[in-house]
C-alpha cells in the first residue's frame, strides 16, 4: 500500500510536468480559461481562427517530439511504449494541467484495436496518419434500437464482389463532424447468433452514401451525430480482424491505462474552484445566503471524489501488477458518473436562484453558468458507454458471479 511515487515514477512525473509547463500553448493553459471552458484540440484543428489552428498544430508537434501523441502505443508504431504506470502518470499530469489531449478516438481506440487485430497493410495505411493528425476518427457502434443492447445492431453490410454494401443508421457517433474516417460495427451475417454476425470495419467518412447529421442535445450542444448509410460501398478489405468476429474485435480489452483518473482530477478541480469561488468576493454574491446548510453536502462530494481517486489508483495498480481489471472498471464508471451528477447538482444548489442562469456572460452568471450547464450536461454520463444499470448488472454477474436473470 503506497500512495506515493517511486523515485523513477517521480522522475517521470517531473519530466511530464516540466514538458507541459514549457510546451503547452497559452490557449490551453488553465490561466487562460474562463469558467472551466476547456478548449478542444479536436475543434481547434479545424477552426477558422488562425491562432486556434496554430495552437493545435504546435501542441501536436510538441507531443509528437516525445512520442506522446500516443503514449500507450508500442514504439514500433510510433507510440512512446509507456508502461501502464507511466501512462497513468502522463494522464494524471495532463489532466492536472487540463491540457487538451490530441488525436481523439484514432489515438485512444482505433489505433490500439488495429495494432492488435489489423493486417500489416491496414496498420501501414492508418496508423501513421493518426499520429500525424492527418486523419481524425469517429466511432459508429450504437443504433437507435441498439443502445444498452448493442449486439442487436442492425446496420447491414452485404457482400458484393470485393465490396460490402452498407445500409442502416448509427447514432451517438461523437466527433463525426470533425472526423475523416469512421470505424463501425456492422452486421455481415444476419442469420448467425447476434454476437457472431458482426464485423468491425473502417471507412472514409466521405464515401458516397454516408450522411452525418448533428444531434442537438438538451443543453443546445452538438457533441453527437446520427450517421446514415445508404448503399455505402466499402472494400471488404476494410474489415479489421476476422469477418463476423467484429464484436470481439470491438470489445477487445486494450491493455492501456483505463483508470479514469482524468475524471477524478477534473471533479476535484471543479469542486475546489466551487469552494474557492464562495470564498472570493465576486463569488460570495452568487452563493445563496443560507449556503452553510449545504456544508456537509459539499464535504460529502469531497469524500466521494477521494473514493473515486482510489478506485482509479486501484485499476492502475492492478494493471501494473499484471492483473486485468474485471468488475473494478465498472465500479469506476458507475461511481464516477453518479458522483459527477451529484457534484453538478451540489453546485447548482449552492447558487440558489442563480442556478437558473444559463448564459455564460454577464454579472449574473455564477462561474459562467458552468454548474447549471453541467447539471444538464452530466445527464447522459450515467447512460452512455454502459448505463448505470448495465454497470450494476456487469458487476453482479461478471464480477460477483451472480446468475443472469
Amino acid at each position, binding site marked *: 500500500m503506497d500512495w506515493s511515487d517511486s523515485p523513477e515514477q517521480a522522475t517521470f512525473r517531473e519530466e511530464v510536468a516540466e514538458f507541459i509547463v514549457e510546451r503547452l500553448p497559452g490557449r490551453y493553459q488553465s490561466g487562460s480559461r474562463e469558467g472551466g471552458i476547456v478548449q478542444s484540440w479536436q475543434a481547434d484543428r479545424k477552426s477558422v481562427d488562425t491562432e486556434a489552428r496554430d495552437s493545435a498544430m504546435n501542441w501536436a508537434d510538441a507531443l509528437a517530439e516525445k512520442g506522446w501523441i500516443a503514449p500507450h502505443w508500442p514504439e514500433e508504431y510510433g507510440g512512446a511504449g509507456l508502461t501502464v504506470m507511466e501512462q497513468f502518470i502522463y494522464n494524471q499530469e495532463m489532466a492536472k494541467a487540463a491540457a487538451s489531449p490530441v488525436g481523439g478516438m484514432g489515438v485512444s481506440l482505433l489505433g490500439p484495436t488495429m495494432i492488435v487485430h489489423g493486417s500489416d497493410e491496414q496498420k501501414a495505411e492508418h496508423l501513421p496518419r493518426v499520429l500525424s493528425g492527418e486523419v481524425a476518427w469517429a466511432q459508429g457502434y450504437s443504433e437507435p*434500437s441498439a*443502445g444498452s443492447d448493442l449486439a442487436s445492431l442492425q446496420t447491414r453490410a452485404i457482400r458484393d464482389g470485393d465490396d460490402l454494401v452498407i445500409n442502416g443508421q448509427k447514432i451517438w457517433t461523437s466527433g463525426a463532424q470533425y472526423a475523416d474516417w469512421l470505424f463501425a460495427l456492422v452486421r455481415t451475417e444476419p442469420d448467425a447468433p447476434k454476437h457472431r454476425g458482426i464485423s468491425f470495419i473502417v471507412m472514409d467518412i466521405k464515401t458516397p452514401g454516408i450522411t452525418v447529421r448533428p444531434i442537438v442535445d*438538451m443543453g443546445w450542444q452538438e457533441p453527437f451525430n446520427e450517421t446514415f448509410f445508404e448503399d455505402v460501398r466499402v472494400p471488404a478489405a476494410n474489415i479489421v480482424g476476422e469477418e463476423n468476429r467484429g464484436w470481439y474485435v470491438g470489445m477487445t480489452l486494450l491493455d492501456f491505462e483505463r483508470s479514469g483518473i482524468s475524471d477524478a482530477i477534473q471533479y476535484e478541480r471543479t469542486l475546489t474552484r466551487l469552494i474557492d469561488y464562495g470564498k472570493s468576493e465576486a463569488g460570495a454574491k452568487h452563493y445563496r445566503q443560507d449556503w452553510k446548510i449545504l456544508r456537509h453536502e459539499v464535504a460529502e462530494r469531497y469524500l466521494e471524489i477521494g473514493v473515486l481517486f482510489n478506485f482509479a489508483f486501484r485499476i492502475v495498480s492492478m494493471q501494473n501488477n499484471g492483473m486485468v481489471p474485471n468488475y473494478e472498471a465498472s465500479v469506476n464508471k458507475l461511481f464516477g458518473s453518479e458522483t459527477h451528477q451529484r457534484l453538478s447538482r451540489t453546485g447548482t444548489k449552492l447558487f*440558489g*436562484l442563480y442556478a*437558473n442562469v*444559463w448564459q455564460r456572460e454577464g454579472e*449574473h452568471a455564477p462561474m459562467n453558468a458552468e454548474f447549471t450547464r453541467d*447539471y444538464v450536461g452530466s445527464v447522459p454520463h450515467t447512460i452512455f458507454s454502459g448505463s448505470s444499470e448495465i454497470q450494476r448488472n456487469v458487476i453482479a454477474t461478471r464480477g460477483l458471479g451472480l446468475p443472469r436473470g
Partner: protein
Amino acid sequence: MDLGLSETQELLKNSARDFLENESPEQLVRDMEEDEAGYSPELWSKMAEQGWQGLLIPEEHGGAGFDFLDLCVLIEEFGRALVPGPFMSTVLGGAVPLMEIGSDEQKAEFLPRIASGDVIFSLALTEPSARFDEEGVECTASVNGNEVTFNGTKLFVPDANVADYLIVAGRTDKGVTLGIVATDQPGVEVTQLQTIARDKQAEVKLNGATGQLLGNDGDGWDALKPVVNHYTVAECAYLVGLAQMDFEISVDYAKERVQFGRPIGSFQAIQHKCADMVTDVDGSRFIMYKAAWSLATDQPDADTQMSVNMAKAWCSEATRRVVAHGQQIHGGIGFTKDYKIQLYFRRQKRAELAFGDADYHRELVAQQLGI
C-alpha cells in the same frame, strides 16, 4: 376528510386538460422557448375566455370566484402541459396581492382587467441577494401620498419582459412597502436573462420608477407573506403536474422500448424506478394539496405556515428525483433536444428554485419544530 377532487374540480381538470392538449401542444412550448415574448397572446386571450386569469377573482370584479384549491387543480394541468407565459406571475404575483391588500379602487381598476386578460402582472420581489425573506428587500422606496417611488435592482423577475405592471417591494424607513408600477416608464429597465428552463426571467432596474402605493407604508412584508405562501404552493402544483407527466411519458416509454428482446419496463431496475416515481408524484400531490387546503380554508396560521414549507420542501426534491429517473429510463433519446422528456427536466429546476428549494424550506420546517 376526503382527498378526492370535488365535482367542480374534476370538471375544471378535465376541461383544462382537453383545452391545453389542443391549445398548448409541445410545439408551442418549444416555439415559446425561442420566442422573445415567451407566450402566445392568442392563447392568453383564449385562457381568459375560459375564465382562468380570473379564476380566483371575485365575481364582482369580473372573475369566477373559485378558491385557491381550484386554482391549484388548474395549475397542475399547466405543469402537465408546460404552458408557457405569464399566467402564474399575473395571477399569483398580481391578482393575489391586489385581492389581499388592494384598496377598493385598486381592485376595481385592476382585477377586471386581469380577469379579462387585458393586463399582465408580475411580482418584483427578489434582488441580486436572491433572498426570499424580508431582509432581502433592499431596493429603496419613498412614499408621497398615494404614490411610491422605487430605486434599486430586482432580479429573477418572471415575465417582466411582457408585464404591464409590477408589484414592487421596496424599503422605506418604516419597512417594506409595496407599489403597483407600470413598466412603460423610463425608470423601468428590463434586461432578460437566459435560463435553464428557457422561461422569461429578468433583471429589472428601477431608477425613480413610480406607481400607486399598495397597502400602507411599511406594512408590505405582512402583506407579502400570504402572497409568497400562495405563490409557493402554486409552484408546487406546477411541479406536481410536471412530474406526473414526466412519469407517465417514462412509463409509456418503458413499455415500448425494447432491448434484449423485451420491453425495458420488464426489467426490475426500471420497474423499481417507476414505482419510486409514482410514490414521489403521489406524495408530492397530497402534501401540496394539504397546503393549498390550509390556505384556502384559513387554517390556523402556524399549521398553514408549516404545511406550506413542508409542501415546497417535499415537492422540490421529490420531483427532482422523478425527472432524474425520467431521463435515466429514456437513455440516449432523452438527451436529445427533439424528444420531449428534457423539457420537463429543465423546467423542474426553475420551479424547484422558485421561492426556495428543499433545503431552504427544510430549514424553515426545522425552525418551526423548534430544533
